[in-house]
């Protein structure tokens, strides 16, 4: 028997409170019927005796204490799943919005009658660390800076730390279009795209690009645009990841999840927390933001005995380009590295403007080198990092003493740095470089430096790759000429 409770006790922020209820459980889904037939949805977030507090996803506009009826659904937030979700577009709270009708959940013949339909709790369950496979297969993105220095691994969560006005969307699209898993002809590749609080044109840009590359049939989109209800944003990545887990672990797809913009998501969590009257932590974000973000990011990986994988590329715009802001800070503590974009490189007109030094891929060390990419990859990457780091020190010095007063070796470093940025980091939006091309380019640029400066490379490897004849490695490096 389904009981409808009429009338509310309180409305505040995105929360409503109902009294006199019984048998309600924590995290239960609620339908809210308004006068005039509109239905909204919510979830129980706190219970105190017969008093339940409900978060309304579509917002509390037009709700009054009298005009509503509440119906508790008896289950947590769920999503119906089947192969048909591929190519579909959903709202931020998992409702189809492409006019193609509801998703019929797949009948699972192996399960007993009561649980035959695949319908999953969107909050997911934690993966047992024992059941994980440590990710080691690299994904070739065709982007030199990422492939060589911040190698993306299948099953990794690698966010892009960007700022307003930078080309993070292009980078995400280019990765999604070009990403090929190393040495395998597998074709079971899918993309789950979750938009949280992004502008309408950004969402349609993603859609057009997917369509243009012919991938739309393999994309599942969840759109919560900036005009959509804020509370719904909290659910969006959960629906997206539930879909991703289903595609990966039930249907053996290799899923790339792009989530943008995590900053809007975290702000939605903050708004919800403050309306609940919780004690704020740093910059007003609740103390549990770390756990909350972790409950999303940790839903990436590979499982023993399953063929598929979930790889996450969350995008976040750092407020004020500040990497110590709580959102990038907590994200960095959870994710397996980060790709940081630099406004300086962006200003020079370089794309992708990947800032090498603060960027990192934690899983890279076990997924590159002999048997994975190329034997010389690890040392090359190590030396490029070290040498480029010296470039930045030298630039700092030259800004004080002037370029003329630098020692000759410092001048060589400056030249190396500018060639490295222009030819290695910088590349075209449609340019897809193979791993071999990327590494060869790296060696050519590194050979601009005198041999004895490359102290991190063993002499025998160096003699194999170092180019002595400087005529072979001439790069045009006159910025004014280039324009």
């Amino acid at each position, binding site marked *: 028997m389904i009981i409808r409770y009429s009338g509310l006790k309180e409305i505040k922020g995105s929360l409503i409170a109902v009294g006199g209820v019984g048998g309600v459980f924590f995290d239960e889904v609620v339908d809210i019927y308004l006068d005039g037939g509109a239905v909204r949805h919510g979830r129980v977030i706190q219970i105190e005796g017969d008093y339940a507090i409900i978060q309304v996803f579509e917002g509390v506009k037009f709700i009054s204490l009298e005009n509503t009826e509440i119906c508790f659904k008896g289950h947590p937030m769920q999503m119906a799943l089947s192969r048909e979700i591929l190519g579909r577009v959903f709202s931020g709270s998992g409702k189809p919005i492409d006019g193609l009708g509801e998703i019929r959940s797949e009948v699972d013949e192996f399960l007993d009658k009561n649980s035959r339909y695949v319908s999953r709790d969107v909050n997911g369950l*934690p993966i047992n*660390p024992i059941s994980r496979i440590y990710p080691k297969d690299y994904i070739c993105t065709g982007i030199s800076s990422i492939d060589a220095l911040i190698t993306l691994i299948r099953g990794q969560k690698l966010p892009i730390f960007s700022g307003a006005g930078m080309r993070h969307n292009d980078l995400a699209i280019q990765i999604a279009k070009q990403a090929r898993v190393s040495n395998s002809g597998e074709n079971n590749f899918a993309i789950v795209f979750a938009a949280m609080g992004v502008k309408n044109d950004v969402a349609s840009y993603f859609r057009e690009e997917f369509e243009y590359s012919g991938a739309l049939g393999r994309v599942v989109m969840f759109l919560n645009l900036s005009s959509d209800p804020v509370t719904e944003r909290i659910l969006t990545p959960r629906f997206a990841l539930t879909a991703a887990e289903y595609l990966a672990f039930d249907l053996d797809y290799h899923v790339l999840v792009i989530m943008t913009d995590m900053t809007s998501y975290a702000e939605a969590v903050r708004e919800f927390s403050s309306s609940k009257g919780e004690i704020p932590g740093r910059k007003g974000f609740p103390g549990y933001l770390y756990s909350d973000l972790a409950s999303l990011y940790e839903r990436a990986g590979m499982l023993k005995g399953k063929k598929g994988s979930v790889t996450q590329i969350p995008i976040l715009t750092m407020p004020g380009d500040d990497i110590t802001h709580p959102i990038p800070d907590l994200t960095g503590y959870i994710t397996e590295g980060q790709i940081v974009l630099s406004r300086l490189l962006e200003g020079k007109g370089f794309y992708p403007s990947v800032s090498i030094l603060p960027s990192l891929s934690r899983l890279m060390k076990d997924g590159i080198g002999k048997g994975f990419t190329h034997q010389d990859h690890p040392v090359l990457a190590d030396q490029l990092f070290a040498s480029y780091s010296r470039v930045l020190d030298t630039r700092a010095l030259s800004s004080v*003493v002037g370029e003329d007063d630098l020692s000759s070796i410092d001048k060589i470093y400056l030249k190396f740095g500018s060639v490295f940025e222009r030819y290695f980091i910088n590349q075209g939006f449609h340019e897809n470089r193979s791993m071999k091309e990327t590494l060869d380019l790296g060696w050519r640029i590194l050979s601009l430096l005198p041999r004895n400066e490359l102290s991190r490379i063993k002499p025998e490897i160096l003699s194999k790759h170092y180019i002595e004849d400087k005529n072979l490695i001439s790069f045009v490096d006159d910025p004014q000429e280039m324009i």
Partner: protein
Amino acid sequence: MAEGLIYGINGPVVTIKGMVSFAMSDMVYIGKEDLVGEVISVGAEKTVIQVFEDTAGLAVGDLVKSIGRPMSVTLGPGLIGNIFDGIERPLRRIEGASGAFIPRGCNIDALDKEKLWDVEIKAEVGERLRSGSVYAVCRESIVINHRVMVPNGIEGTVSEIVKNGKYRCDDVVLKLKTDGGEAGLTLSQIWNIRAPRPVKKRLPMNVPLITGQRVIDSFFPVAKGGAAILPGGFGTGKTMTQHQLAKWCDADVIVYVGCGERGNEMTQVLEEFSNLVDPKTGSPMTERTIFIANTSNMPVAAREASIYTGVTLAEYYRDMGYDVAMMADSTSRWAEALREISGRLEEMPAEEGFPAYLPSRLSEFYERAGRFEVLCGESGSVTIIGAVSPQGSDFSEPVTQNTKRFTRCFWALDKNLAYSRHYPAINWISSYSEYFNELDGWYSKNVSADFAGYRKKMMFFLHEEERLMEIVRLVGEDVLPDDQKLLIETAKLIRVGFLQQNSFHEEDTFVSLAKQELMMKAIIYLNKKARNLISASIPISKVIETGIFSDLARMKYEIPNSRLDMFNDYFYKIDGEIEKLIA
């Protein structure tokens, strides 16, 4: 058994209205699924429980049952090599029971109750046994001999023993006649995770924990029984350093606690440790390691408990007379769990929302480290190495600051060092170890009488370099006089050739103290010889041109740990090059 009914639910916190006869810290089972929880506040109006599992699905009126004892863990053979969650549930058997995802209410015994252990009884009928006395041993892993001890609070005369042979961990192997009657002792016992296990007395901390990591052993050593912290922003290599320490330090037993960290990292540790062979024993590292994994997406209250579970297991092996090292990665997640629960209880927050009792909790925890004479008469130690993840890499935040007060060894990880791929990124200026004076005696007796002197000299070079670099940054290096240029060159050699250590390099991942000492000796020798040249007005650039500095920078790779005689070649080489320049 006391019972109550749920009145309110707010995230991981559940309240019961009215009086119930629960005691503080009691372990409870909640609802139909028997979720595990702990009583954290008791009152006439309401009793509050923190739940170690996701509370979705709990309803008002669900039953809460107390088991009548505090939150405890089971101690006995079968812990080594195993992996548990924050409240000692075995993750391997959870996988066996429910697959890749961890469901709620999964109550599986920590120890395998069916497994037979080869037990040798060490007590005789008529013998008087006290708490902590060893009455049986069994081989728990290739390297660990498990000593079964009389549980705390029991004392009596042995009235009955079984024959040596195979027994399960719950089989009674010995009966004691006590004042109150008779007690049957098995191979396992139960202990409250919040209470330190009793010991006889504290011993001085004058033995270092050898880690094979140069910057730690030579510059900032930690004593066996000491406590060290490892603060650093993300990407500075906290976890990598913890892994290195867990792999190479010379403790008998390692307890590795992944507290609120990444799932893939735990998988990696497990994988690596099963493949890695311990050089001392020739068996896989897992044979001496216990893992506790509460990854960041597992319930937050269990994260709070995981640190205590870890230290309790460490103390149990200490009581057998082992040196135990516990790695906690990261204690900040534990502090945040405290903050989250505190917030749900609507307690008045102190700094940055952390509860006012954060410092006292931290000090209680770190005081469980120490070197002791344990109840069975042997000596054992627990060394705690806690990683701290400061928000925004800012070391002035409360967790770093308060932890600093209760630990005596501070390994500050530096973002800039990590950016330039200087690993381990332990900053030599801001790190410190207060143990050095206590350990001096050990070093001069076991390594070399010059060890402390070398360390002081090298620290001097590094500190001077820091000062000189400020000048160099303003006017360039060219203007410095030659002796200062030499100092900078020497400091660079120390940084690149000594402090940087490559954990992926076969010879460099672990370095013996003897080699560390010789490396320091060689660097200081070169510096001294070069100084003579400069006083003879030979320009420093000549010395650098010989390439001797770069040669020395490679000695960490070129000289294997087993071929320390090769250092002689380097000393000859220094002499040779210098003589050539004088001539």
